[in-house]
C-alpha cells in the first residue's frame, strides 16, 4: 500500500499546473474564484484553449482524439483545474453523450458529433428529467412517433442545465407507448434549432437561471439521429448514469472551497479577533477538513479500482453522497462565517465589472446564494435517498 503519487504522476501534475498558469486567462480565473456569473463565451473560450492543447476531453481515449489519460491522470487534471480557478468543463457533451456515442453510436454519428464536441463547436445539454419523473426516470412521457424517416417528438424536459446555450440535446423519448417503464424508450439526438423547440428558463431560489424547461412541439428528428436500436434507449441511459455518478465527489472543488472558508474565517473578525481563532468555529472547519481528507482517499481507492479495470459500482454512490454533503457543509460554513453580512442579496454584483454600491466586501456577495443553490447537490444526479437505496441493495443485499 502506498498512497503517494508516482514520480510520473507528479511530473504530470506539474505539467498541468504549468499549463494552467500560462494559459488560463487572469480575468476568467478572477471570475471563477470570485464566484461571478460565467457566460457561454467563458465556457467555450476555455474549452477552445484546452482543445488547442488536446485536453478538452480529458476522459476520452486516444482513439477518439482524447488524451488517453488513466483515471488517476484525469483526477489530477480535474484537481489542478479546480484549484487554479478554471471554469468547469460542461459535462453534457464530453462526459455524457460522448461515451454513449463511442459505445453505441454509428460510425457516422461518431464522425459527425465527436470532433465537434471536442472542438467546442457543439454545446450539448441533457434531456432526461421530465416534470413528474425525477428519481423515477423510467416514468418519462415525451413521445416520439415514427413517420417515415423522422420521429415526431412531443413533450417536455425539465431541469435542463444550460439549455439556453446549447446547440444539441440528447433525449430519452418514448417510442413505444404500449410498453411499460424501461421498455419502449429510445435515445435521440435533437438539434436545438429545430422548429418546435422552446426553451423556458427556470429561475432558482438564488435568483439564477441556469436550468430550463425545454418544450417539444411536433419536432421532427431524423431517424439517423437515433443512437443504437429503437426501444433500447434505457440500456444506453443506464450506461451513461454510471458515468455521470463516478465523478460526483467533487474533491477538487471542495478543496478550493475549504481554502476559501479558511481565508474568510481569517478575514472576518469575532470578538475583535480573527474568527478562525474562535475554537468553536475552527472545530467546524476541522471536522469538514477531516471528512474531505477521508473522501479524497476514498476517491483514490475508487480510482485505483478503475485503474485495474474494476468497474466502480455502488462505490460511486458513496462518493456522491459524501461529496454532496461536504459541498453543502462548506457552502454553509462560508455563509455562517459572514455573520450578519450573509443577509444582503446583491445579484447585480455577480456580473464581472460591477461598480455600483455594495454592502460588505465583494467576495462575500456570492456566498449565501451558493448555499441556497447547493441544496440541490443532494437532490440532483440521483438524490441521496436514491443513492442510499442503491448502497443498501447492491452493497448490503437488502
Amino acid at each position, binding site marked *: 500500500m502506498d498512497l503517494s503519487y508516482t514520480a510520473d504522476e507528479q511530473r504530470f501534475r506539474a505539467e498541468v499546473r504549468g499549463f494552467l498558469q500560462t494559459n488560463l486567462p487572469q480575468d476568467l480565473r478572477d471570475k471563477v474564484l470570485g464566484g461571478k456569473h460565467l457566460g457561454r463565451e467563458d465556457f467555450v473560450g476555455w474549452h477552445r484553449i484546452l482543445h488547442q492543447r488536446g485536453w478538452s476531453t480529458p476522459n476520452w481515449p486516444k482513439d477518439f482524439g482524447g488524451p488517453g489519460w488513466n483515471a488517476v491522470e484525469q483526477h489530477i487534471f480535474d484537481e489542478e483545474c479546480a484549484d487554479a480557478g478554471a471554469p468547469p468543463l460542461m459535462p453534457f457533451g464530453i462526459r455524457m453523450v460522448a461515451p454513449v456515442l463511442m459505445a453505441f453510436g454509428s460510425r457516422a454519428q461518431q464522425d459527425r458529433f465527436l470532433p465537434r464536441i471536442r472542438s467546442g463547436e457543439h454545446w450539448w445539454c441533457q434531456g432526461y428529467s421530465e416534470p413528474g419523473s*425525477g428519481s423515477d426516470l423510467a416514468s418519462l412521457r415525451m413521445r416520439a412517433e415514427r413517420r417515415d424517416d423522422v420521429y415526431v417528438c412531443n413533450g417536455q424536459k425539465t431541469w435542463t442545465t444550460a439549455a439556453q446555450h446549447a446547440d444539441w440535446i440528447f433525449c430519452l423519448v418514448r417510442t413505444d407507448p404500449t410498453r411499460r417503464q424501461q421498455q419502449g424508450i429510445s435515445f435521440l439526438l435533437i438539434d436545438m434549432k429545430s422548429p418546435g423547440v422552446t426553451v423556458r428558463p427556470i429561475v432558482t431560489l438564488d*435568483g439564477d437561471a441556469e436550468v430550463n424547461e425545454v418544450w417539444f412541439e411536433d419536432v421532427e428528428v431524423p431517424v439517423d439521429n437515433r443512437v443504437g436500436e429503437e426501444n433500447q434507449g434505457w440500456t444506453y441511459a443506464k450506461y451513461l448514469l454510471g458515468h455521470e455518478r463516478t465523478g460526483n465527489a467533487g474533491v477538487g472543488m471542495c478543496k478550493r472551497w475549504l481554502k476559501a472558508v479558511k481565508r474568510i474565517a481569517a478575514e472576518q473578525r*469575532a470578538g475583535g479577533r480573527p474568527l478562525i481563532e474562535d475554537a468553536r468555529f475552527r472545530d467546524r472547519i476541522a471536522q469538514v477538513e477531516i471528512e474531505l481528507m477521508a473522501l479524497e482517499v476514498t476517491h483514490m481507492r475508487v480510482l485505483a479500482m478503475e485503474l485495474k479495470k474494476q468497474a466502480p459500482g455502488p462505490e460511486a454512490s458513496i462518493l456522491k453522497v459524501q461529496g454532496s454533503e461536504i459541498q453543502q457543509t462548506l457552502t454553509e460554513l462560508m455563509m455562517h462565517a459572514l455573520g450578519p453580512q450573509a443577509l444582503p442579496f446583491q445579484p447585480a454584483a455577480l456580473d464581472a465589472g460591477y461598480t455600483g454600491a455594495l454592502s460588505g466586501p465583494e467576495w462575500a456577495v456570492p456566498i449565501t446564494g451558493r448555499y441556497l443553490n447547493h441544496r440541490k447537490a443532494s437532490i440532483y444526479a440521483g438524490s441521496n435517498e436514491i443513492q442510499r437505496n442503491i448502497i443498501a441493495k447492491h452493497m448490503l443485499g437488502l
Partner: protein
Amino acid sequence: MNFDFSEEQNQLREALVRLLDRGYEFARRKQIVASDAGWSRDIWRQLAELGALAIRLPEAHGGAAGTAIDTLVVMEALGRRIVVEPYVPAIILGAGLVSRAGSDAQRTRLLPRVASGEQLLALAHDEADTRYELARIATRARPDGTGYVLDGQKTVVLGGGAADTLIVSARTAGEPGEPIGVSLFLVDTHAAGVRRHSYATHDDHRAADVTLTGVKVAGDALLGPAGGGLPLVEHAIEQGIAAVCAEALGVMAILVDLTASYVKTRKQFGVPIGQFQVLQHRLADMLMRVEQARSMTYLAATTVDSSDAALRRRITAAAKAMVGQAARFVGQQAIQLHGGIGVTDEAPVSHYFKRLTLIGMTFGDADHHLARYSDLMARGPTPAPRA
C-alpha cells in the same frame, strides 16, 4: 400553569389570519417584494388598523400594553405568510426601545405615530466588525454644545431604508468591545450627513447600510442614559429574538404542511413518495423539532419581559440556539423532500426556506447562542425558568 391564549389574543390571531389570507397570498407577496419600496404601506396601514402595531405600546400613548405573548401571536401569524413588512425592526426593536427607554417627550412625539403606522423606526447598531458581539461599536458621538455630532458606519440595518427615524448607537466613551460608553440617539433619516444604501436581503426583506458623517443631533435626541445604551440594545435584541423565534414557528409550521402535502401527492415509482418510510421518518423528525422549538419559544415569550436580565439572557440564548437548529433542519429537509421543485423561485417552499435561513442568521446563529449559553453556564448555575 397553562398554555392557553386569551380571548383577545385569539381574536387578534384570527383577524391577522383573515387580513393575510385576503391580502397576502403568495402572488400578492410577489408583487409587493417586486415593488420599488419592497414592502406595502397599505398592508402596514391595515396592521395599524388591527392594532397590531400598537399592541405592546404603553396605554398612555395609544397602545394596548401587551406582553411578549401578544408579540408571539402576531409573529407566528406573520411567519405563516412570510410577511416582509418591517415589523421586527420598526415595532419590536424600534418602538420597543422608545417605549422602554424614551423620555415622556420622546414617547409622546413618536409612539402615537408608530401606532398609526406613520412613523417607522429602525435600530442602527451593527457595524462591520460587530458580528454578534453587541459591545463592539466604533461609531462616535462627541458633545457639541448641548447636542452631539455622530460619525460612523452602520451595516445591515434591518428596515433601515423604510425608517423615518433611526436609533443609532454610538460611543460617548470607551473603546469597541467595552460594555460602558454606548449611547443611543434618535436620528432623522433625512438629517444632513446621513447617507443610506438600501437593498434587498435574500429573503426579500430590506436592509440598509448607513453612513453618518458629522451628523448633528440636539441634546434631546439622546435615548436613555448617556453611556448606558448597551443594556437597552441587549434587551431589544432579546425581544427581537423572541419575536423571530415565534415567526420561525409560523414558517416551520407551513413548511411541514407544504412538505406533508407534497409527499402525499407527488408520485414516483407508482406510489406517492409519502409512502416511503425514510420520508415519513424525516417528516416525523421535522415535526418533533418544531414542537421542541415551540416549547422553547413559549418559554422565551414568558421570560423576555422579565426584569431579571440574567434570566432573559440565558433563556433567549437557549431559545435562539434551539430554534436555529430546528430551522436549519426543517428548512433543509423541506427542500430535500420537495426535490428539484424545492430549489425554484416559483415554489413557495423556497421562499419559506430562505426566510427561515435568514432568521437563523439574524441576531446570532445557533452556534453563537449555544456558545453564549455555555459560557453563561460556566459563570453560575442556571436560574430555574419557573418557580
